């Protein structure tokens, strides 16, 4: 039997079919968690945001535009939540770094990464690559980081990222290229060559 589309499951959920909503949750469990984890670099935050995203889907289910696609809608909600979370963190971080910035030389963008914000598991020896990737990612603005996460970690094609984030494919490419150049610059700076 053909797999039911996301939109059919959402329609079933609208009618109160618990099983349909559960199937949607299970379908996006891995994919969306992966996106949120690599966007925030925090497992607990990713789990909270995953739950929050589906709570918002549930709360706004009646506003879903007939004929619309569920996946971009879900990613729009999740990306907005992740941006809010990162803004909150940045505000907290800017307070703690304030004295240092005022007292000394300007803090480089790549140095804004707080080692404590990294997942503890990454501090384990042998996971330098993961820590390096996370550090490079954290140095990126949210709109670039989203594209990087979807391309490298969610293994999406340009067209899929375009659909998920609701931006033109040319924008996806330009954001990805810019992000890669910034990460390369950050890595070169960190390695001192």
């Amino acid at each position, binding site marked *: 039997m053909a797999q039911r589309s996301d939109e059919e499951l959402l329609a079933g959920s609208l009618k*109160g079919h618990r099983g349909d909503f559960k199937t949607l949750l299970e379908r996006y469990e*891995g994919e969306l*968690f*992966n996106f949120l984890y690599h966007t925030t670099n925090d497992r607990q935050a990713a789990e909270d945001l995953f739950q929050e995203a589906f709570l918002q889907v549930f709360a706004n289910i009646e506003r879903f535009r007939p004929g619309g696609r569920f996946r971009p809608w879900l990613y729009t909600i999740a990306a907005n939540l992740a941006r809010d979370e990162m803004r909150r963190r940045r505000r907290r971080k800017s307070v703690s770094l304030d004295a240092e910035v005022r007292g000394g030389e300007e803090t480089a963008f790549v140095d804004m990464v707080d080692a404590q914000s990294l997942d503890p598991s990454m501090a384990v020896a042998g996971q330098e690559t993961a820590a390096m990737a996370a550090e490079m990612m954290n140095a990126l603005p949210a709109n670039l980081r989203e594209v990087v996460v979807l391309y490298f970690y969610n293994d999406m094609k340009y067209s899929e990222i375009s659909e998920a984030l609701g931006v033109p494919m040319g924008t996806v490419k330009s954001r990805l*290229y810019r992000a890669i150049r910034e990460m390369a610059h950050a890595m070169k700076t960190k390695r001192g060559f």
Partner: protein
Amino acid sequence: MASQCQLYEDLLVEEALGEIGQKERMFLRAHLDSCGECRARLATLSDTIGVMKREKPAQAPAGLAERTLRRVETAGERFSAATSPYHETILTEPRSWRVRRSLVAWMVAASVLVMAVASLVPEWLGSGSARSLQTCQDHMTIIGTALRQYAADHNGAYPRGPEWYRALDFDYLQRQGVLMCPARMAVGPSSANVTDYLFNPTHVSVNEPADYPLMWDKNSAHDELGRNVLFVDGRVSWVAEEEFEKILIKYKISEADIPWLAPSTDTRGR
């Protein structure tokens, strides 16, 4: 970076990603042969992309979907422990749907009232034959309302297949009795037929013209001069046989194309 190198910025990234076209690669290679700075940049880009590609996707914590579902259930009543489909429907449907269903319920009630009055005061409608004709139209009106309700919930499409009436069961049609024509019921129950009405499911949607025939009486249900016809716009009319033939021709509806539209061999009385 030399100003001419800026021309190759995007191509360097595409090359590092392995997504460069053949022509562009040749163009870039020609530049790289003579530009050490761009070769170094390509190496750094490839290194960066290598780091990103080595990173594995994160695994979701076990039971995340189930925990989320529980949170959703706590937050709202949509998936609360409804004890019956009816209870669940009342709890879960948006208000606009409930209003629409209420409207249908009122229309059904009104139709039932009309039928009750018609059966209690036969003289209002003349002969018994005329009465059954009117009741038959009431049945078709109720079915038409249910069909439109179904179509509204299914992107404008009506149910398909020989057992189309099953799709209306409970959710759209509370009284299965209306599937039978009173004129045919009068001569005894039919073991072969669940409904006395012929439904035309070929390419039918709510977008068909208003006079597109959606359902009609079996031949000879009332008399051989005509039959009741339900149109896409919900109207039910008595249509003379000659006129009905013209409608079928106009919309190229062939009974041969629809197996269950084959003329009934049921010889029960009129």
